């Protein structure tokens, strides 16, 4: 099976601080949902920023679908950041058109359907929406692409339980079999049942990776229990 993500000796320094240290990993294509797990400061967001081309590695090699990070990989990666990245001055419809203009794989019909189900007025400016609605809108736009790789950075952090359920449900109902989805989170118990593959990051290093069921069987623990054990002293 081909790999959607491949890194070899990936290292990232912020000045003298090492955020990622010699990370080597392979994520097979179409493996399903990959949980990128680790406590705050473990390097999850750094790894995601490197995958999306928002950061440049200090050293090492990184490839998506066998291509070095660049314009071509951005065309096949759908990314949801943990920041509010939508343009506040646009209306919901204008933001949709922006996605349609720049992402060839964007399915506007699907996005509109989801937005209407959410009950958002498309003529409203994004700055007038509540924080929760903005997050849901960003998720809808991200999932409305038919991308090969989805990367969601902390999609359920900082939202109320009802919004969390909505987000998880939206992710699950729109997850395609022909794509891979990387979800970074530290709220493992909420979502671990949906992970097909997990990566544990600790102090910038991969300390555990593999198929979820195999790890659970081998360790005799849930992923949440395992996480608490690995990161007990952090």
């Amino acid at each position, binding site marked *: 099976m081909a790999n959607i993500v491949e890194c070899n000796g990936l290292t990232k320094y912020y000045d003298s601080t090492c955020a990622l240290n010699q990370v080597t990993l392979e994520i097979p294509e179409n493996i399903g949902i990959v949980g990128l797990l680790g406590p705050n400061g473990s390097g999850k967001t750094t790894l995601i920023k490197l995958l999306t081309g928002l950061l440049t590695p200090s050293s090492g090699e990184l490839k998506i679908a066998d291509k070095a990070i660049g314009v071509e990989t951005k065309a096949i990666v759908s990314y949801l950041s943990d920041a509010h990245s939508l*343009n506040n001055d646009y209306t919901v419809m204008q933001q949709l058109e922006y996605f349609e203009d720049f992402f060839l794989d964007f399915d506007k019909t699907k996005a509109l359907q989801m937005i209407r189900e959410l009950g958002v007025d498309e003529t409203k400016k994004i700055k007038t929406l509540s924080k929760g609605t903005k997050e849901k809108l960003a998720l809808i736009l991200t999932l409305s692409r038919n991308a090969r790789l989805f990367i969601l950075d902390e999609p359920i952090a900082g939202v109320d339980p009802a919004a969390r359920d909505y987000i998880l449900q939206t992710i699950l109902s729109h997850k395609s079999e022909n794509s891979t989805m990387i979800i970074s989170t530290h709220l493992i118990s909420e979502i671990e049942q949906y992970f097909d593959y997990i990566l544990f990051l600790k102090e910038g290093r991969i300390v555990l990776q593999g198929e979820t069921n195999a790890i659970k069987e081998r360790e005799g623990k849930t992923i949440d229990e395992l996480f608490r054990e690995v990161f007990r002293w952090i």
Partner: protein
Amino acid sequence: MDLMEFDMPKTTPQPLPDSDYKEGKLRPVRGRVLKKLLKYEWKAMLPTLTISGIVLLALTLLMCIFVRVDLGAFGGEEYPATIAVGVILTILLYVYALIGVIVAPFIVACRRYEKNFFKDEGYLTFSIPASMEEHILAKHLSGMIAVLLAMAASLVSIVLLDTFSVTGDLDLGYIELDPIVPQHPVSVILGAIEDMILFAEGLVGAFAVSGALICWGQKFKKKSQMFWRVFIAYFVFIALETVFTLIGETGMTDFFYNTVAGEHVSTWLTILLYAGVIAFCVWYELRTLKKKLNLK
């Protein structure tokens, strides 16, 4: 609670066939990315241009009325006090509008540069499949065209004012040729070319230097750090300027100011210097966005 209980749409997205990427079928879109980026820059710039254009037009019309006012109608050579205050205020506003109409798109372009690249919007900006070169080019090009349009609008306004003027104060009806023209026609043509290049460099340079300064500003976690460095940079600039002035006083640079050939040489040196500054600024912008970008 089983999440699957929610009544959600069950559409199954099908990614575009792998072969489309491998065979490069998606590549033709790349050529249009710059066009699309420019479209969004224009959309953002248009309200500012429209508003400043309307304000300038209104003030131009008002000025046109004032320049045609028949002083005799007021029974004397001076305006009545109330009219005089109105005229002075309108002239002041008009001058500000002339400056503002050119400066406004420049400020909007700089604000968008920072907001789209270095604030939270940067996450979306840099996830679209466009190269850094395309991002920078779209920003600068749209800004330059907007400033050129604003300059053209200001020029039209001044010409209109001159056309309506009955007092003859504006004297824009003709261009007096420099007496040097008959003696040095080649020099005059060369001078015109030099002026055009310097104008183009000034326009490109304004955006390139601003872009580079915004990129540089992102390096500082605290605004005070940036303030002190800008302060020091200003003093270095003043010191260099003083040194050049002192050199000029010694007469070493007379060749550049007192001969026709010298003037051209000095102009071309300036052109080269500006080109170097622009090249450095663009390189710095690209380096920052490609290698040093770190959105918080």
